[in-house]
């Protein structure tokens, strides 16, 4: 996977993860272009489109579009599955997730994504394991916060 973008129906970017090195300018350009293209598509259309030399796989969940760019030989259906997995993870973590959860806790959304994918490849296929890793890391964070609160 080359990158993953989350954006709202209004075209506001909610999360971006790039697995290929690109300049900021290029990233912005791609984002703008893709958001436009995807938003312009009608609801009944299929979730794939060819874009430059990549394939775009996107899916809409409520008001959010999840959009991934994969390479020519990659499997579109498994990419949809990845998107779905990620949504499930967010859902489990936040408890019926909504766009606002992701806006206000965007760093958490990143942490979850990072436990699920690494370098654009699926790192952990077990939802349970991903959530466990996140929970433990959160636990570590909280305990440290308490320490810190107490000592300062």
């Amino acid at each position, binding site marked *: 996977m080359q990158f993953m973008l989350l954006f709202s129906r209004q075209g506001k970017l909610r999360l971006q993860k790039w697995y290929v090195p690109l300049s900021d300018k290029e990233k912005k350009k791609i984002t703008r272009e893709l958001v436009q293209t995807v938003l312009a598509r009608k609801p009944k259309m*299929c*979730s794939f489109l060819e874009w430059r030399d990549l394939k775009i796989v996107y899916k809409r969940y409520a008001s959010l579009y999840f959009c991934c760019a994969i390479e020519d030989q990659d499997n579109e259906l498994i990419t949809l*599955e990845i998107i779905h997995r990620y949504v499930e993870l967010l859902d489990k973590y936040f408890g019926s997730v909504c766009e606002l959860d992701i806006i206000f806790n965007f760093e958490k959304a990143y942490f979850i994504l990072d436990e699920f994918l690494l*370098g654009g490849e699926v790192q952990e296929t077990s939802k349970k394991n991903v959530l466990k*890793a996140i929970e433990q890391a959160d636990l*570590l964070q909280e305990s*440290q*916060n308490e320490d*810190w609160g107490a000592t300062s």
Partner: protein
Amino acid sequence: MALKMVKGSIDRMFDKNLQDLVRGIRNHKEDEAKYISQCIDEIKQELKQDNIAVKANAVCKLTYLQMLGYDISWAAFNIIEVMSASKFTFKRIGYLAASQCFHEGTDVIMLTTNQIRKDLSSPNQYDTGVALTGLSCFVTPDLARDLANDIMTLMSHTKPYIRKKAVLIMYKVFLKYPESLRPAFPRLKEKLEDPDPGVQSAAVNVICELARRNPKNYLSLAPLFFKLMTSSTNNWVLIKIIKLFGALTPLEPRLGKKLIEPLTNLIHSTSAMSLLYECVNTVIAVLISLSSGMPNHSASIQLCVQKLRILIEDSDQNLKYLGLLAMSKILKTHPKSVQSHKDLILQCLDDKDESIRLRALDLLYGMVSKKNLMEIVKKLMIHVDKAEGTTYRDELLTKIIDICSQSNYQYITNFEWYISILVELTRLEGTRHGHLIAAQMLDVAIRVKAIRKFAVSQMAMLLDNAHLIASNTQRNGICEVLYAAAWICGEFSEHLEEANQTLEAMLRPKVTTLPGHIQAVYVQNMVKLYASILQQKEQAGEKEAAQEITQLMIERLPQFVQSADLEVQERASCILQLIKYIQKLQVKEVPVAEEVIALFAGELNPVAPKAQKKVPVPEGLDLDAWINEPPSDSESEDEKPKTIFHDEEQRHSKPRHPEMDEEELARRREARKQEQANNPFYIKSSPSPQKRYQDTPGVEHIPVVQIDLSVPLKVPGMPMSDQYVKLEEERRHKQKLEKDKKKKKQKKEKRGKHHRHNSLHTESEEDIAPAHHVDIITEEMPENALPSDEDDKDPNDPYKALDIDLDKPLADSEKLPVQRHRNAEALKMPESEVPPVEKKSKKPKKKEKKHKEKEKDKGKKKEKEKKVVEEEEEEKKEEDLDFWLSTAPPPGSAAQPQSGPQTSAAVASEPEGVKKEEREEQQEEEEEDEGKKSSKHKKKKHKKEKEEKSKDKKKSKKKHHHSEEEMAESVQNGTLDDEPLPPMSSYRLLAENPYIKTTYDIQGNLQNDSQVTVSVIFENKSTSFLKSMELNVLDSLNTKMLRPEGSSVHDGIPVPFQLPPGISNEAQFVFTLQSIVMAQKLKGTLSFIVKNDEGSTHEKLDFKLHFSCASYLITTPCYSDAFAKLLESGDLHMSSIKVDGISISFQHLLAKICFHHHFSVVERVDSCASMYSRSIQGHHVCLLVKKGENSVSIDGKCSDPTLLSNLLDEMKETLSKC
């Protein structure tokens, strides 16, 4: 209470946390930019504070702003500060920010190396995890190089959580630092069999990604992956593996045969659409790469097409889309199978989803036949009319043209129809593809002679209606067709019926608004038209009409003379003068038409693309040499017949007028033709000469077209092409009736002498004869054209660097760089850094041996297969891809995954003949319990196990030998995976005293032909602390130590670390040298300070650094054919030595030469071996080593005699110690 107070003050200290920021932005929708710039100012203040929590909060907010598109690169340093916070909470935020905004251009990124290294080795697995995740986003070549070794160590971490991350990130490291691939690959391969499924899947992911880019290097892993595929139940992993096989099979068709069965099984059994889709795709890829010799070949295709049909019929648009996509892949090789689903595909053309329609369009390409082309195109034309978006319409347009023009217009039976379609397409508004239509018009008009008359009439109509086409500036794209129209009307003006009218259309003032290049064509072609009208009028004796037309030209041309376009202006003014001259002659009543028309005599034939490129340069031809001496006069430039310009006219006109000196012209033309005829490299024009100039003797063979004049040129209210469809139907019907009457076959194939015509008039499989005889002139190609049509690959492909042979044994020089020059870390972990590398460089030794054997018995293998096989060969059978492939295991061979390797090996060891007979039997058995297997089988298994055992024994014995010879001083034998190994014996003693022991090794550098790297290990033997170590050598003229810029030759180089008691560490020093043919010795001194409780003393240690000739050699593998060629070349000097009293085995002897002298074995036969190596300066060194009773003789050949004799002397010394 107090705690609460403190917390409250902290909260105030964070002026805003992330939530506040987000809320604030949402509340300031009107002046968002202003609000954010305020926030950024606040953040800048926060970043200046010392409190890391405040900083982290600021960085967190910045990360959010970065997503909104604000530049935060200015805070890169603060991000690093937060990354290096000791608390996980902050570290996490720091790494997140870094992964979002760092890239290769971030200059502070190099400051992170040590921090990342520290985090990687943190006892807390989440610290390590967060560092790995971050690194995967911003790894640079430098970071990759510096950290590759650390990450590789983590691949063997005790926690699977870290292992899987480390494995995945290795892929990014390989991309950035390709040199790391070979040293790291063995461990990566190990991870394919990691007990943790997550790690295993990560390793599969990485290797699959690598293999997809450069499949050939991974063929040898096929058996391992095959095993994984048949045993794994994880769909994620399966998909990757299956994809990998898709990449491998084109290189090894036998692999495909093996795959078909398990894949079809999966297709039948799986319920996961993604897996099904992947399987179908790979089966297609496999079948494409297989020649059609497969028995169940068509069955597999049928299965795929069937499954795809189900996908296409599904209501899920995604599946429909993918089904069509995969279908188009099958179409390329098995069009018949797809054609049977034409109904379904045509149906998809009406789908509401444009992307699905586009996919269906792709498929149409293969659906057409002579029979249905018109019908399909008609349907498409309707879509063109209905289409809303221009993109889709443009796509339709190109598809129509693609479909019609494919395989040289194979399916077009009526070109009049096609021309009408093209003309209809010109009515499209706002298309970008005007040039495409134009190109088609030109192509058809030029190549289909029979259609010219019709084409010209249609083009004349277009020119007449040019105002419609060019009226709207938006429709600019389409005005390209006027280019074609003008040219066709001009070039084939003899077919024009109303030439006057067309000429007038071309002279309209409106024309000057067209783009310059089209106007230029207009100007040029109106002269052609003019010439033909002139001739016509003159022949008819209508002198006045002829003069009138001249007058018209003279009146109208000036509008082009004023053109801003140079080309138009130049042509117009030239032609204007010419016509003025003609007018003068006309007034004198001199007949001019013949001469004017001679200006455009000759026929233009299409030339194939790349025709010029494909002419091979004949032997002995020097393209740079003068063919004749440089011309002294312009005579030889026959293209510019200067002499025919009339001198008289020169005075008052810039462009000169040609005087039609018929004789001279003819003479010249004749001479030129003669010249061309004698010149084999001239691309000959068609011999059919001037079209109307003479009475076309060469064109009788062109069939006279009976144009059905019942077709009106334009049917009001109805697109014209529809008429053809009807007519065609009628015609076909009639034809059929006629055919029934007289079954007479007609087949004509006409071949001009120089000029090939591919007659399309062959009986098609559908028995549809073309409407009229059509000649398609094939594009001209030089007679001896080369078939080569290689399109160069993209040199910028980032994956190209990873095209690395992984089966080749590792050379000593291939190590991952171990951290050396960084002081800070050296103190902490001097020893633990080294082991993985040491281990790596040991492994390949084993491999090397195997490699040798592999090569040796490759040739013999086939005959030997049925004989009793030697143990040594048996050892590697399971790895031998050839062998694995030659015996297809029964599909159920992986039914018992736990006994995986043994089972497949057992099957693999069966002789070929038995295998076939047993196969069916086995298939049944496999499903049953293992215990119920036939006794025959059992016996085999037993035997195999026995072999396995003895093999193991042998293996361990070998390992033992290795440790003896390769690690002379080492005690451990290196079989334990995670235990550190002491340095290898390639390190020689440099100097030693009671405080310190130094050993060194010298290695050449492939990238630089005049540098070697000396690695020195310093070992503190004392109980004191050693510091301020400095190494200095006395440079010789030839060999110099590379010192930092600005330092003098007498300065020493500080050793970049200090040594606590009992610790050793390694430093590298680079030396430059000019000549490498002789060994060198440099004197040097190591100075250091010894510090203990009693105080510190300054100590010195003198040494002699010996650069042996072998240290200039780099182990380079060489294939036997290249080796033989090298020996044959005769450029090499020869020398030999003989050493007596050798007691060690030949095997060990070779290993010794390989190891100490950096050679590789090219070929080994019994007690004779050829070896090869290469110096850093490119000298080839070839050896022939023969072992006698207890002596060894070595014959060497090398491009430099001195180097050779020195090398042999060194070898003699090594061997005499044996």
